[in-house]
């Protein structure tokens, strides 16, 4: 018997006088509570949207040119070959997506284009990781090993994602006001230079603020000894900054409109600005902040279908097209795969495939401090 039938019966009993008004409304309220707890109509909608059946897999990413490249080079041929439809969705940020996944049922979301190792560890902490059968992803052998190993370390030797691209969060500056020499000489401290008060920006993300605070206080960001010195630097930057930006589009707008002269920036976004003709310099200071993005398979997903899709997405043709679209180098090892003419020109590209010049967030260290530092940053940001 479906819910509609149950409701009609209840209404008939009420109309016939078998139950009084209070009982009727109580039953109705209880039905509402049950529906809310067990899913009810929402659950039915969710099941409709759920793409965990072998006929479909759901992919979520950043949208824009990246999604277009995925659609053209990976999803369409994949569907043609397998008959499995790829339902594509987008999200605005990693935090927003993890909140959505946390609120969902297993299998509702399948694959996602996520930020690197730190978020991978967060998903693992929430028991949302899966176990990929690497035999089903032969293209994985073309991926830079340095990017795969940190993932293995977190999930005990297996992986729940494949690395897909990488980039850096370096220092972007307007060359009209700041010379290359000055940027190089001051490095991360350029962003706490009083001379540029009111013309400094920064990403309003706690990890990046603390990382740069550590660099500005001459500490190793993955082994901070004096956190108070870091907070002092975060405060100094806050007081000099005009704006904390929260998206790549906002970063580009602030620099392009000359609202700010210096900020940290994502290598691909700065490259896009340079390509548009803006005279923006980009510097990865010593121990520059690198990151990777991965294609993550969530627990409860149809694994064989997802693994086959991952293999499609790791095809050099697809990975290079996506990389050129978003201006971030692909995770493919340049020592094994010919990456064409454009990729070597992208910022952060490492022709050796070792990425030895970059530093990455140590997931164990940063996850251990996440709860405390993210909350403290929220306060420091507001003047505390």
């Amino acid at each position, binding site marked *: 018997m479906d819910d509609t039938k149950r409701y009609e019966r209840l209404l008939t009993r009420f109309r016939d006088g078998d139950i009084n*008004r209070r009982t009727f409304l109580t039953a109705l309220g209880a039905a509402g509570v049950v529906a*809310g707890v067990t899913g009810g109509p929402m659950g039915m909608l969710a099941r409709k949207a759920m793409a965990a059946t072998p006929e479909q897999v759901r992919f979520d990413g950043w949208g824009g040119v990246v999604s277009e490249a995925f659609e053209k080079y990976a999803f369409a041929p994949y569907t043609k070959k397998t008959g499995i439809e790829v339902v594509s969705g987008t999200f605005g940020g990693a935090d927003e997506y993890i909140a959505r996944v946390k609120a969902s049922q297993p299998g509702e979301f399948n694959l996602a284009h996520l930020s690197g190792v730190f978020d991978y560890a967060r998903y693992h902490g929430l028991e949302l990781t899966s176990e990929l059968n690497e035999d089903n992803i032969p293209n994985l052998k073309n991926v830079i090993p340095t990017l795969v190993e940190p993932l293995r370390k977190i999930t005990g030797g297996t992986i729940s994602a494949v690395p897909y691209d990488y980039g850096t969060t370096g220092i972007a500056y307007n060359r009209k006001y700041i010379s290359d020499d000055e940027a190089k000489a001051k490095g991360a401290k350029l962003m706490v230079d009083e001379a540029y008060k009111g013309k400094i920006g920064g990403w309003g993300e706690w990890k990046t603020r603390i990382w740069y605070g550590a660099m500005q206080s001459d500490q190793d960001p993955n082994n901070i000894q004096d956190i108070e010195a870091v907070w002092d630097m975060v405060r100094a930057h806050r007081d000099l900054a005009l*704006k904390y930006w929260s998206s790549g589009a906002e970063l580009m*707008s602030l620099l392009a409109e000359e*609202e700010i002269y210096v900020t940290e920036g994502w290598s691909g976004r700065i490259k896009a600005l340079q390509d548009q003709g803006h005279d923006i310099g980009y510097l990865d200071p010593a121990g520059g902040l690198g990151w990777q993005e991965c294609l993550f398979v969530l627990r409860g997903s149809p694994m064989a279908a997802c693994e086959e899709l991952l293999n499609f997405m790791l095809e050099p043709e697809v990975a290079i097209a996506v990389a050129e679209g978003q201006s971030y180098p692909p995770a493919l090892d340049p020592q094994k795969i010919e990456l064409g003419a454009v990729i070597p020109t992208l910022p952060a590209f490492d022709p050796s495939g070792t990425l030895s010049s970059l530093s990455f967030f140590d997931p164990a260290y940063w996850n*251990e401090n996440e709860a405390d530092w993210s909350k403290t940053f929220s306060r420091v940001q507001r003047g505390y």
Partner: protein
Amino acid sequence: MAADVAGARRTPWVLLSPSLATISLLLIVPMLFIVVYSFWLRTATGADQVGFYLDNWIEVLGDRFYRDILFQTLLIAFYTTVICAFVGYIPAYFVANTRMKSKAFLLLLLMLPFWISYIIRTMSWINILGTSGALNTLLISIGIIDDPIQMLYNQQTVVLGLVHYLLPFMILNVYVSLDGIDKNLTEAAQSLGCTGFQAFREVTLPLSMPGLAAGSLLCFVLAAGTYITPIVLGGPRDAMFANLVFEAIVTQLNWPLGSALSLVLLALLGALVVIYTRYLGIDQIAKSFK
């Protein structure tokens, strides 16, 4: 006979049952979830620890940080409401008293901003007040200033964005109130020797107070609950209470703390609505939507 009376009494409840079920499902049940969540804890991995813990409530109610941001939020909402009241009264008075045939067109103009996304409207100020925005370009081109003035990303622009967003709500409420005033009353006051301004002060203004109060309540509650405007138009320090809720739930993945924070805001704004209803009646707000 008795059965007929009982049937007649039941009918409104039967008719209301779909609405009651919808409200239960979409409002009361989720709110109960939030109440339950506020007593849970976030573990180090981001997972929730089920149980009955008062930690979140002790933190939210005992920590000065939250009180300060709440006070700042109420202050911004207050400034916004006062500016909306002053700026909104004049166009509402004009529309209510105009003898133009196109009064309906003027009302339509009031509704026009609702056709554009609130976020787009908020972001439009960046193009107006930005360093290379319309206002700076104009001031430089006519020689008033040599270098652009930094106007964006401070508390004033947050208030400006909120006024832009909420002004139509104020104007509509005041207009409804003014439109319902019998014009003979002001004429009678003037015939008894009042000047035009005295008639306005002694007759029109007091009679329009319910509309002004309804508009103020709406503006205050909506302003206090916003988080987009400070993100788009605020500087690093400019945050409102709803931003803390957003950060707790989305950035820190601390749903229990976020739940406690949102309930505090809900309780505070709910108390305001209750006080308003007690003294002025909530039906005044409904009139502006008729």
